[in-house]
């Protein structure tokens, strides 16, 4: 005989199930959170070598204004190992810094809290945190790793949706280490802090995928090297001061060449937003010629991203001939051996930019 279902029993079973599901989910989420954060608190053993002492006689001043510099990659010509060799840690430093990604990282709140603890440093260093800040100390061993690689280890390449790390968080660390280093009386401890800042800059430039990362890396090297210069000057170490000043002298040319390359592919002067919200491109063919010519000689991977973003706009808005040429270029890049470049170019071919994306990419010159 079949008994009728007991409604009370059903309700109680459902109530118990709700508790079990909620508890299980909470446990799982806590476990994931713990896995994402705790395992990265302390990186594996690492070592950082003291830089080899350089003598003035072996230092050269790179001539960035000489004609031969036109073929140089946008990199330091001076060996940065002379001032701040990288550590030999085997972890990927990007895994740690990605935890603090704005609005997405599992420790984004910690990064926001760090930002709220900042104060204005003396001089022109900008906003820093206290030298004994817990997060500043926690990050230190991560800068002693040998590599920092975000793509594709941490973030996937997703065209214009590709995520980037919290660069302001890193810049704050760089400023704070340098401020602490310059303040401390012991020159060795001070230099160690400044070198840590330079190492962070070197790590940021290592991957060569995102121009903004590279520019912030350059800024970190600038900040750290200025700290080294001040300590060397204070201690009367002229050879170290000379080395620091040569490195500092290489910063502006690199920014300048970067600006030149970016300007060469910038579409903003030729784009106009119509009252209806759509975009119109009024670009002379010679600008596209200049872009194509620049691509021919490109050696740094980070500039390809800029070319591809520009190319996707031209492929959508250019004249029929410009569209054909730029599609050919994107197809060529999509077949590139470098998967980062190839994936990005393929994304550009598959995803023509919308008016909303164009408005984000070119916000200012067109709003007139």
């Amino acid at each position, binding site marked *: 005989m079949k008994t009728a279902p007991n409604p009370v029993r059903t309700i109680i079973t459902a109530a118990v199930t709700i508790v079990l599901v909620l508890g299980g989910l909470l446990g799982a989420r806590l476990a994931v959170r713990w896995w994402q954060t705790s395992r990265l608190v302390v990186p594996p053993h690492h070592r950082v070598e003291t830089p080899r002492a350089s003598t003035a006689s072996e230092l050269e001043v790179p001539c960035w204004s000489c004609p031969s510099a036109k073929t140089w990659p946008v990199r330091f010509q001076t060996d940065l190992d002379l001032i701040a060799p990288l550590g030999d840690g085997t972890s990927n430093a990007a895994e740690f810094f990605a935890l603090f990604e704005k609005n997405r*990282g599992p420790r984004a709140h910690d990064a926001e809290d760090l930002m709220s603890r900042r104060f204005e440093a003396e001089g022109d260093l900008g906003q820093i945190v206290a030298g004994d800040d817990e997060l500043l100390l926690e990050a230190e061993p991560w800068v002693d790793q040998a590599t920092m690689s975000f793509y594709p280890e941490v973030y996937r390449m997703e065209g214009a949706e590709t995520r980037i790390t919290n660069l302001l968080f890193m810049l704050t660390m760089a400023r704070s280490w340098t401020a602490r280093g310059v303040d401390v009386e012991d020159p060795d401890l001070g230099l160690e802090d400044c070198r840590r800042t330079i190492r962070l800059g070197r790590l940021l430039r290592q991957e060569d995928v995102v121009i903004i990362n590279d520019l912030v890396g350059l800024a970190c090297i600038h900040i750290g090297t200025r700290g080294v210069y001040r300590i060397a000057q204070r201690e009367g170490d002229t050879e170290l001061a000379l080395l620091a000043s040569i490195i500092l002298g290489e910063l502006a040319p690199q920014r300048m060449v970067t600006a030149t390359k970016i300007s060469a592919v910038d579409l903003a002067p030729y784009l106009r937003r119509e009252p209806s919200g759509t975009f119109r491109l009024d670009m002379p063919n010679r600008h596209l010629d200049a872009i194509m010519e620049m691509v021919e000689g490109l050696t740094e991977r980070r500039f390809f991203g800029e070319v591809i973003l520009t190319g996707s706009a031209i492929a959508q808005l250019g004249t029929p001939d410009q569209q054909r040429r730029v599609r050919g270029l994107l197809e060529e890049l999509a077949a590139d051996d470098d998967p980062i470049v190839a994936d990005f170019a393929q994304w550009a071919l598959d995803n023509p930019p919308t008016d909303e994306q164009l408005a984000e*990419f070119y916000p200012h010159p067109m709003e007139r």
Partner: protein
Amino acid sequence: MKQPPDSVSDGLAPPVPPSALRDRTLQAARAAMTENGGDDIWSRLWKSRPIRLAWAASVAVLLFGHMVIGTGAPSGPPDTLRPVMAAAGLRDELAKVIDVERVTIELPAWEIRVSRDRVETEPPTTNEDQS
């Protein structure tokens, strides 16, 4: 030596309860139980106020826990790749570092026209040196 049965003490034996008493009692108990709703284990759980309170409290605590974990990361758009000029144009603190300035600019025709119009309509600026 075995004693013969004592007829006197036999008469003093307690009276036997009525044979129907057991059935009547059980029947009454069953009736009372039915009147109370037949409290099996499920019914007792259902009616227990402490258990209801404990369930509500545990659900509230678990939901609160989920809310706390849920706010582990601020909800907002992630920073994504964009042209450097656009990123520098955001005018936040980082923009000062990444703004490399446009080096050359070739003005398209409409821009030149606007600039020329401006020049034609604007009155000549007065210079301190009038000599």
